[in-house]
Structures are given as C-alpha cells and as structure tokens.
C-alpha cells in the first residue's frame, strides 16, 4: 500500500487536474484519513494560486513584434524599387570580395519573387544593431581580429578583406566588429561596418545552409544577385565560393558606395565609378 511519500507526488498533479482514474481515487481516499497530506494539498493550492495571481503577462517589445511580423508577412517589393537598386547590386556583385570578380558584364533581369529568410534576418539584425539593441561580440576595426573571432565559431571559413589606402588617405568605411547570429540550426556571421555615419550590415552563412532567393534577380557573369527592399532597407543577397551573403544598408548609402565596404582601394574605386551614385529608375 502506498504511503504518504508516494501520495505526495500525486498532490501536485491533483491540484493541476492531471490525476485521473485509480490514482485519483486512491489519493482522495488517502486525504480523507491523512491530515499532513491535507495540509500539503492546501499548501499546494495556495502556491498555485499565488503563482497564478503573479503570472507575468509579458508583452513583446514593439521592435520584436515588428521583426516577427516582417518575417511572417514579408512584403513583396515593387519592381520599380528593385530596379533602382540594380546598380548597387552590380557594385556589390563586384564585391564578391573573396573572389574579386569584374563588373560590367551582361546583366540579365529575372522576375521578382518573395524575399528570403536570410534577407529578412539581415534586415532584422541590421535594424537591431542600428538601434543599439544588438551588442557586438567582437569590437575591432581590424579585419584579422574579426576574422579570428569567427574561426571555429561558424561552420565555414570567413576571411574579411583589408584593402590598403594610400598615404594621406583614409578609408571611407570602418569595420566595427561582428557577432554570431542564430540561423537555422547553426550560427551565421554578422559583420558591422559604418560609412559616413551610416551602418552597413553583412550576414554570411554557408551556401548549404541558405541560398539567395526572392527579390529581383540580376545576373552578373556567373553570379546572380537578389536585390530587394525590405522595411525600407536595401538588401542584396548572393552566393559565391560556397558562402551566401546578405548585405543590408540604409537608403542613404547609395549605389556604388556600398561596395566600398569590400573594395575600398583606388583601383576598385575607379571601377566602381562606372556606376551612378543614384541609379536611374
């Protein structure tokens, strides 16, 4: 026959209404004859009532709600806006910075599709970082330091470029640092830059984890760029050399400026000058 120690385990479930059948009947019979267990039941009920009365009714912060709703109901961008982005995309395409491909190749535009999860995450991450809500895990303007931080933490090799500038020149962009961002079953690399006070965000993951999709497509040689506007930000996603990139920047950073993040040398600038600062619509 079960003693008090056995019944005590049942009391909590009894209070929760989860005890049924023979167990419930046995406990109720035991409570009739056992004062200590009746006391325990009263205490359990009191504790449950206290917990229930004290239930924290949390309300998600508005920024989080906005991000989740953006994920749930991604806006389909107009072709008009996507076209305005095209030159920036071409410039960024040039900035396939681990490969260094030439720009100016034949462009092939394809029909726009729904934006990708990676693009949405890039925008969310960019907005949070811009608002000071996303602390960096490594803060450094030295690419080798940030690259070293990611080594072993993300399931791919990422080497950030460091383009030299001439004497008396200064870089028009500044590396600020990076952090890990949860993405699917692993981590993506988030790299923060700033140019003329405006943040530029780069999200990198392996091509096996995410492939660019959605937006308007622009073909540049072997590379395909997905260009879209999400929540008022420019987003360009592409895959190259086994990695998938998503670059989000503020509207104020126009055209070829964005690619200076990756290609800031004089030689690169001359090549980028072929793109208008504000691409025509």
């Amino acid at each position, binding site marked *: 026959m079960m003693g008090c120690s056995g019944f005590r385990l049942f009391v909590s479930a009894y209070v929760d209404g*989860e005890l049924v059948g023979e167990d419930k009947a046995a406990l109720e019979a035991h409570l009739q004859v056992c004062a200590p267990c009746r006391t325990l039941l009263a205490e359990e009920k009191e504790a449950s009532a206290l917990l229930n*009365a004290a239930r924290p009714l949390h309300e*998600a912060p508005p920024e989080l709600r906005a991000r*989740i709703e953006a994920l749930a109901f991604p806006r389909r961008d107009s072709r008009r806006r996507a076209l305005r982005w095209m030159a920036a995309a071409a410039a960024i395409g040039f900035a396939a910075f681990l490969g260094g491909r030439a720009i100016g190749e034949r462009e092939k535009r394809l029909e726009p599709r729904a934006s990708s999860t990676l693009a949405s995450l890039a925008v969310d991450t960019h907005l949070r970082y811009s608002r000071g809500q996303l602390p960096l895990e490594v803060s450094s303007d030295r690419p080798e330091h940030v690259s070293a931080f990611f080594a072993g933490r993300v399931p791919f090799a990422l080497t950030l470029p460091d383009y030299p500038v001439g004497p008396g020149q200064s870089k028009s962009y500044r590396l600020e640092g990076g952090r890990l961002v949860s993405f699917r079953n692993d981590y993506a690399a988030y790299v923060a830059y700033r140019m003329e006070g405006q943040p530029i965000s780069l999200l990198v993951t392996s091509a096996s984890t995410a492939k660019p999709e959605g937006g308007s497509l622009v073909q540049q040689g072997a590379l395909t760029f997905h260009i879209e506007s999400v929540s008022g930000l420019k987003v360009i996603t592409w895959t190259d050399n086994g990695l998938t990139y998503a670059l989000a920047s503020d509207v104020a950073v126009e055209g070829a400026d964005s690619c200076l993040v990756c290609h800031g040398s004089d030689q690169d600038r001359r090549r980028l000058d072929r793109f208008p600062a504000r691409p025509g619509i």
Partner: protein
Amino acid sequence: MSDGSQEAFRREAVSHLDSLYGFALSLARERTVAEDLVQETYVRAFAAKQEKAPDDNIRSWLFTILHNVWRNDQRRRRPTSLEDAPEAASRLVASEDPHVLVHREETRQRVARAVGELPESFREVLLLRCVEEFSYKDLAGILGCPAGTVMSRLARARLQLRRILARENRKDGAA
C-alpha cells in the same frame, strides 16, 4: 500548403508572440537574448512550415522549438549565471485598478524573485504549467521528457518554491 492556410498558420503563430517572449525571458533572463531566442523560433517555424505542417497545437509546437533552440544554444555557449537578476525590462499588461495593480505587482515581484532562485529545470516547468497552462502531455513534448518526469519535477519545483517563499516570509516578519 495553400496561400490561405499558410497565412492562417502565420497569423496564429504570431498571436503567441507575447507568451513565447515571456517564456524566453524566463529562460534567458536577458532581453536581447530572449529576443534572439524568439526570433530564431519563428525563423525555424516558418521555414519548417514550408515543408511540414503540424496539424494541431501550433502553440505547443512553437514552445517546443523555442525550448530546443535554447537548449542547443546553451550547449554551445557558456550558460547564463544564475546570479544574474531577471531583467525587469518587459512591460506588464496593465488595465486594472491601480491599488490592485500595486498589490499584484508586489506579489508578482516576490514570487518572481522566488522563481528566479529555482534551477532552470524547475523554473521552466513551473512557468509552462502555471503561467502557460500546458497539459502534462504537452509539457512532456516541449521538454522532451516522459510525463512521469514532468509530474515529479513539478512536485519538487513547487516544494522548493514554497520553501523559498516561507523563508522570505520569515525574513519579512523578522524585519
């Protein structure tokens, strides 16, 4: 899945945002981490939904994803110190008499402090049961353990909570 059913699924999923955020806060105890946790939960839910649609209990399914994300994250990162105070950054829904609210807030803070002293395994099961009111069956699914474990863990969690509250009451009485 048709566009209409996907829309309905996503609307329901978003309707559980506040609850998921509260649970994430109770686990992470830090607002930015909780937000990351919730966001990752939705990213995974929407990605999975494109291929597999759970027919029922989307709410329980979302909590299961969140709990799994948290557990996996904990395995990879240094766990949050238990000495960290729960962050009181989230707003409480308030629409009642101010005096009632003040009393409730005092009670809430007292209980929240006591819950905060519990080990994570007790904290999560108590909150999922007493705040989110999941059934033991759902709890077993969310926490990935047998229903019997849920029952015994809840009993031990309540016992420990009562002891902490009693200790605090004695302190208040002595003060």
